[in-house]
């Protein structure tokens, strides 16, 4: 250390004028508020100028010192001054590099100092917000700044050594540098395309550290092993540098591949599950662990075989996925480039074993499509994109419909349904405050591209449910904080079929697949009591068929894993930490327990026995399938 300190001291002493220059530069930011630059806030102006100047000074010094501190001494044969004295090679290298780094970074800090002493901080919303933002004064910002100074210094030393040695190795350097930059560029592009931004940020920090280490190690080897021989120094520097950077690039690319080769088993948390209406396929999304940069992939997964197909990142594809009614087709949006737009519609034939996703001719470049629905035969796609309802043939991209959505911002209009392959139904609700003023339903004939029917239902009500055939809706009129009246309306006539008076708080209502209606009421718990849950089964005209009392004060309804058995999840725990799951026999009202902490992933309107009705999310995060016999099979078991 004594040798290191001796070299460091000497190198610093030789360049002390730089410190003086930095001290003088630090006065410039103090003068900026007095200049006619149109910056109104003096602290903001000082801080911004100080940061900009500090960064420029430190980077320029890093480049200048990096290219001279070792490389010039070596080429001008002045390194012998140290090597002819009892100084270890590492102390010579470390002392010179540390001095250069201290001078470059320290000069930057010195430029910042007066403004910081005055308490100036850059305002992200002020004149400089576009430049450095919130990281400017943070520890992370300082660390990145210091790391960048070091990287520039070491890189400048390496390049200067290569150029000054004037050997043929320079050609190898150019070749190796180009190849490695290409490798890193491709890997970065792949991560960007997959929107694996968390993983990319992690990989880039790792890359920066590895690059700094590689340059440092290469220049250390250059000095300690080649000593005063410039050509040998260049050779050793290049060999070490490209070997380490090669490994780094391979690791970077390998990491990117590993991140992107994610499978459902790599999810540490399941975010959402969308089951196909029929068959064994589901769409499942979630997040991976920190090591994969918390990537949020989405998969189509065959729960019977375990086969999965990655369909894009959750953030871009969710809300942009649809199954056909028979569960044999799936379509989804997939980014066509590196940005969110444009997107292309991809499809997968779920019913064909081994089928691979294919891009369809349908694409969107201006607005992301949402509310995707597939016609029953899987050949037509409808969605809402921008301010239009769009329908297209998937096979050839032919436009079938491009109708404007209803004008005005108060419409909630995101529900589409194919009544058959020719007729597309569009449901819209106009909201005004908490009340509702109008419901409108439009039918489009896709063969003519015209509106074939329009139904208007004025009133203070909202759509709570749509029947499986799309022809009836559950309407809830709102008054105050909760629903007070429920009605069933027939869209063929546009008239209410029945009104269901809501006694007490109605917490939910839904059609069952056979057209019956399930209504959930919860009575307020008496003082010291636990309350009561009441399920009422109504026929398609609202007449009560059955009434079931459930234990607990909160309920969540699933689907019917087997016809006539409805999955219900209840809790009586005031803290709602423990839940029990049962199958409710809709005939007898008997409860068949299936376990604790099993959250049904389906909902009451799903076809009985379809995959969605049999999926449950375990409290510890696993996804299980429970068949009608009660046998549980783990589909996914995230390791959190």
């Amino acid at each position, binding site marked *: 250390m004594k040798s290191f300190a001796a070299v460091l001291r000497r190198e610093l002493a030789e360049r002390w004028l730089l410190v003086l220059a930095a001290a003088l530069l630090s006065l410039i930011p103090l003068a900026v508020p007095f200049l006619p630059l149109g910056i109104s806030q003096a602290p903001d102006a000082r801080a911004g100028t100080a940061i900009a100047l500090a960064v420029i000074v430190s980077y320029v010094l890093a480049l200048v010192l990096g290219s001279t501190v070792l490389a010039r001494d070596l080429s001008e044969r002045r390194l012998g001054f140290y090597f*002819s004295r009892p100084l270890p090679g590492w102390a010579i290298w470390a002392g010179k590099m540390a001095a250069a780094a201290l001078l470059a970074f320290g000069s930057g800090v010195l430029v910042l100092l007066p403004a910081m002493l005055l308490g100036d901080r850059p305002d992200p919303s002020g004149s400089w917000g576009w430049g450095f933002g919130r990281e400017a004064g943070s520890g992370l910002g300082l660390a990145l700044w210091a790391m960048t100074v070091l990287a520039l210094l070491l890189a400048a030393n390496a390049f200067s050594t290569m150029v000054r040695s004037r050997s043929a190795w320079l050609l190898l350097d150019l070749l190796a540098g180009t190849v490695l930059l290409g490798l890193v560029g491709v890997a970065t592009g792949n991560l960007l395309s997959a929107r694996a931004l968390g993983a990319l940020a992690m990989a880039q920090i790792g890359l920066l550290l590895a690059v700094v280490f590689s340059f440092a190690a290469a220049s250390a080897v250059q000095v300690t092993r080649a000593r005063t021989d410039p050509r040998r120094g260049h050779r050793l520097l290049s060999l070490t540098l490209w070997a380490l950077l090669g490994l780094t690039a391979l690791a970077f690319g390998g990491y990117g591949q590993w991140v992107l080769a994610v499978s459902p088993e790599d999810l540490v948390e399941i975010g959402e599950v969308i089951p196909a209406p029929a068959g064994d396929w589901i769409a499942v999304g979630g997040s991976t662990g920190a090591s994969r940069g918390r990537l949020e992939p989405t998969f189509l997964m065959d729960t019977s075989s375990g086969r999965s197909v990655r369909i894009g990142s959750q953030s871009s594809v969710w809300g942009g996925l649809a199954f056909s009614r028979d569960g044999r087709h799936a379509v989804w949006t997939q980014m066509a480039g590196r940005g969110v737009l444009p997107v292309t519609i991809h499809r997968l034939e779920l019913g064909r074993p081994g089928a691979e996703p294919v891009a369809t001719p349908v694409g969107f470049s201006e607005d992301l499509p949402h509310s995707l629905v597939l016609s029953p035969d899987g050949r037509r796609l409808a969605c809402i994109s921008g301010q239009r309802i769009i329908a297209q043939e998937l096979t050839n991209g032919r436009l079938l419909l491009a109708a404007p959505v209803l004008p005005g911002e108060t419409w909630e209009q995101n529900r589409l349904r194919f009544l058959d392959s020719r007729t597309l139904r569009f449901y819209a609700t106009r909201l005004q405050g908490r009340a509702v003023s109008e419901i409108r339903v439009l039918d489009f004939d896709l063969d003519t591209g015209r509106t074939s029917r329009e139904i208007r239902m004025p009133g203070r009500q909202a759509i709570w449910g749509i029947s499986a055939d799309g022809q009836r809706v559950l309407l809830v009129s709102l008054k105050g904080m909760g629903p007070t009246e429920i009605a069933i309306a027939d869209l063929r006539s546009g008239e209410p079929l029945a009104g269901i008076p809501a006694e007490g708080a109605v917490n939910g209502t839904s059609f069952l697949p056979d057209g019956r209606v399930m209504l959930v009421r919860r009575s307020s718990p008496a003082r010291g009591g636990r309350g009561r849950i009441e399920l009422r089964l109504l026929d398609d005209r609202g007449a009560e068929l059955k009434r079931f009392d459930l234990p607990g004060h909160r309920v969540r309804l699933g689907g019917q894993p087997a016809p006539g058995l409805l999955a219900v999840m209840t809790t009586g725990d005031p803290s709602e930490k423990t839940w029990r799951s049962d199958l409710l026999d809709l005939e007898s009202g008997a409860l068949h327990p299936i376990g604790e902490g099993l959250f049904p992933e389906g909902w009451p309107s799903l076809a009985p026995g379809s995959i969605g009705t049999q999926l449950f999310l375990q409290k510890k995060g696993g996804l299980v399938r429970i068949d009608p016999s009660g046998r549980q099979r783990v589909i996914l078991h995230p390791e959190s």
Partner: protein
Amino acid sequence: MDLVAIEELSVRYGRRLVLDRVSLSVPEGSVYVLLGRNGAGKSSLVRCLLGEQRPGSGRVRLLDGDVWSGRAALLREVGVVPEEPDAPPSMNARQLARFCSGLYPSWDGAGFAARLERFGVPPGLPFGQLSKGQKGQVTLSLALAGSPRLLILDDPTLGLDPVARRAVFDELIVDLADRGTTVFLTSHDLAGVEGIADRVGILRGGRLLVDEEMDTLKQRFRRLRLPTGDGEGLEALEPVSVTTRGWGSEVVVAGWDESFARDDVEVAAMTLEEIFLSLVGQEGAR
């Protein structure tokens, strides 16, 4: 004990062989002078000796230690004067001494100051502003101030005027007399080193042509002047060069034997410079 021991040292720059299996040793207390023309390999050998250059093959030991792996520790007892004074231009002699004083266990600050005074070098003037002679004097003073057991000088008088050259050798002689320092010296100043060398090595084309005691060398070399046609028995004296003159022949022999002395043969002793020129001088003439 040999303070320098070089065995079968070879150095190659690319395809060019610069040193070819050179072996030599320098016993403690002696002065070894290595001679050779420019490009003979002297500086490469010195770089190997200082651990700056890794030998292609062979071994280089300094103070009985491997100099490549133990350079820093070994150089604590070695003073070095490079061919080109390489101190940072902004540092003056006083700052240089301060820097070096922490590196050598037996630093003699007073001796350093006294030498500078003897040389007449201003201690506060930046190294870059000193004359070439003064730079050499500062580096020699720095090398001697560490009270080294071994002094390695790479052509320390190169480019110096006669006065400065004389001052360098005078200082060396004083140190030799005072402390018996071992010296390894390369030089083109053959007249200057003749008075102090105990042993001489001559490099030619990377090969060590001569490596022997100064006295022995001078004993075996002679210049003979012979009448024309009187060369009988000359082969045994290992003639190095034969020059034909109007009055006869001038022959330099490397294996002089007193028994060859005859009245018609004029025998003259040779200076180191003459010996050197007779051995390597013809190369340039060709």
